[in-house]
């Protein structure tokens, strides 16, 4: 594989629910180390796109290629293998409520990767340390704050050693004072070279981290480009309006 070959390619992805077209032909590419941020109003299809890429929702049309291999026709075992390579972080964490933080991270290693328990425990602890939660390993999700839950869910996804991480508004259901700790973890991931695609409304964060911002509206990509371009020199009027609005909002939250 050459360096400029993309890891993940999405080609003309389409999805409709009943009469409503949620994705109207989305195409994009992720290269190693890329950090792409999806922005756009609610209902633009960002979350559906990420779910489709993780094969949690079947796309109606279009292709998804991992290392050049179309995964949309994959079944069963090959889907399970694919999902281990493409980690997913959810807006509402979805930690397994009956398991401690440590066991949340361990269970995929033990049950999916079939790694012996001791080794899995060691690796799970290492991932929890990485997100700064080793001392909370024995607590249950109900005993953790929202920010801590999201960090555990990131550790859980990382433990599977994914090549790409999809993050679906990872801080949207957090109190403002808790978003910082999650963003720091994501920043660390970025610094470590993780390839990521993230839907978010935190434009200032996207601006500092992303090498490309993708603006979606009504199930289509309106415009994409570097954060600088999207913020100061967007070609499309809608993009300019939207970026200016959320940028202003995050700089002056009281407005």
């Amino acid at each position, binding site marked *: 594989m050459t360096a400029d070959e993309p890891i993940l390619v999405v080609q003309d992805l389409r999805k409709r629910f009943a009469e409503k077209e949620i994705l109207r032909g989305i195409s994009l590419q992720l290269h190693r180390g890329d950090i792409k941020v999806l922005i756009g109003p609610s209902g633009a299809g960002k979350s559906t796109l990420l779910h489709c890429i*993780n094969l*949690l929702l079947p796309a109606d049309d279009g292709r998804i290629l991992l290392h050049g291999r179309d995964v949309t026709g994959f079944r*069963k*075992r090959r889907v*399970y*293998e694919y*999902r*281990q390579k493409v*980690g*997913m972080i*959810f807006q*509402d964490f*979805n*930690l*397994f*409520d*009956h398991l401690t933080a440590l066991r949340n991270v361990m*269970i*995929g290693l033990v*049950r*999916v*990767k079939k790694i012996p328990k001791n080794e899995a425990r060691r690796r799970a602890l290492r991932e929890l340390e990485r997100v700064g939660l080793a001392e909370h390993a024995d607590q*249950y*999700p*109900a*005993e953790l704050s929202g920010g801590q839950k999201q960090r555990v*869910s990131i550790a*859980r*996804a990382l433990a*599977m050693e994914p090549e790409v991480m999809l993050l679906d508004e990872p801080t949207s259901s957090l109190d403002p004072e808790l978003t910082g700790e999650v963003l720091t973890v994501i920043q660390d991931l970025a610094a470590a070279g993780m390839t990521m695609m993230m839907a978010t409304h935190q434009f200032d964060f996207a601006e500092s981290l992303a090498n490309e911002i993708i603006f979606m509206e009504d199930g289509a990509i309106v415009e994409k480009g570097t954060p600088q371009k999207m913020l100061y020199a967007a070609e499309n009027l809608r993009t300019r309006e939207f970026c200016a609005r959320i940028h202003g909002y995050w700089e002056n939250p009281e407005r």
Partner: protein
Amino acid sequence: MDEFLFLRQEVAPALMSGLWMSIRLILPSAVCGLALGVLVGVLRIYGNHFLKALVGTYVLFFRGFPLLVQLYLWYFGLPHVGIYLSPYMAAVIGFSLCSAAYHSEYVRGAILSIKKGQMMAAKSLGFSHTGAIFYIILPQAIRRALPGSGNELIYLIKYSSLAYMVTCIELTGEGKILASAYFKYMEIFMIVGAIYLLMVSLATWGLNRLEDFVAVPGFERIHD
């Protein structure tokens, strides 16, 4: 003194052997009923169309037919198609299948109460559908089903008394024989009733301990 001798020499041995038979009926029926109930509950939610229809019909019939009628069918009905069950087997099969139908409803309700995101998160980690059900959904659902399923187990202890209607002489059956022989209905059936009360109390205590044992923060219990 006569009363005491009568109790010790006539009543106690008969009721003890009846109690033993009751326990032999209840324990396997409870285990098989619960296991089958969990399976049926899972299939009612996650099965394909065919399996859903199949287990749906099963639950309809086994909750719809009176248990006594079911026992008559197993014991008196099946020989007509060439299947002969001992009274004991007919009773255990009857109890297990009936119990499972009720358990399945508790399990089904519990599974429906688990958030959709749990399944999605499991899948995103690479779990198979079956693996996610087994390792992620069921451990949570069974905790939620426990109060209801426990109730069904308590109920089983008492409907095990129907076994004597298919000539499997357990506690109530022995009591009936004693009471008719000596015409002491009041005394004998008060003792029999007290023994059931004792079994139910023990089971309730055990189920509460079990709920405590599997309790997890976030799955709050009503009692303490």
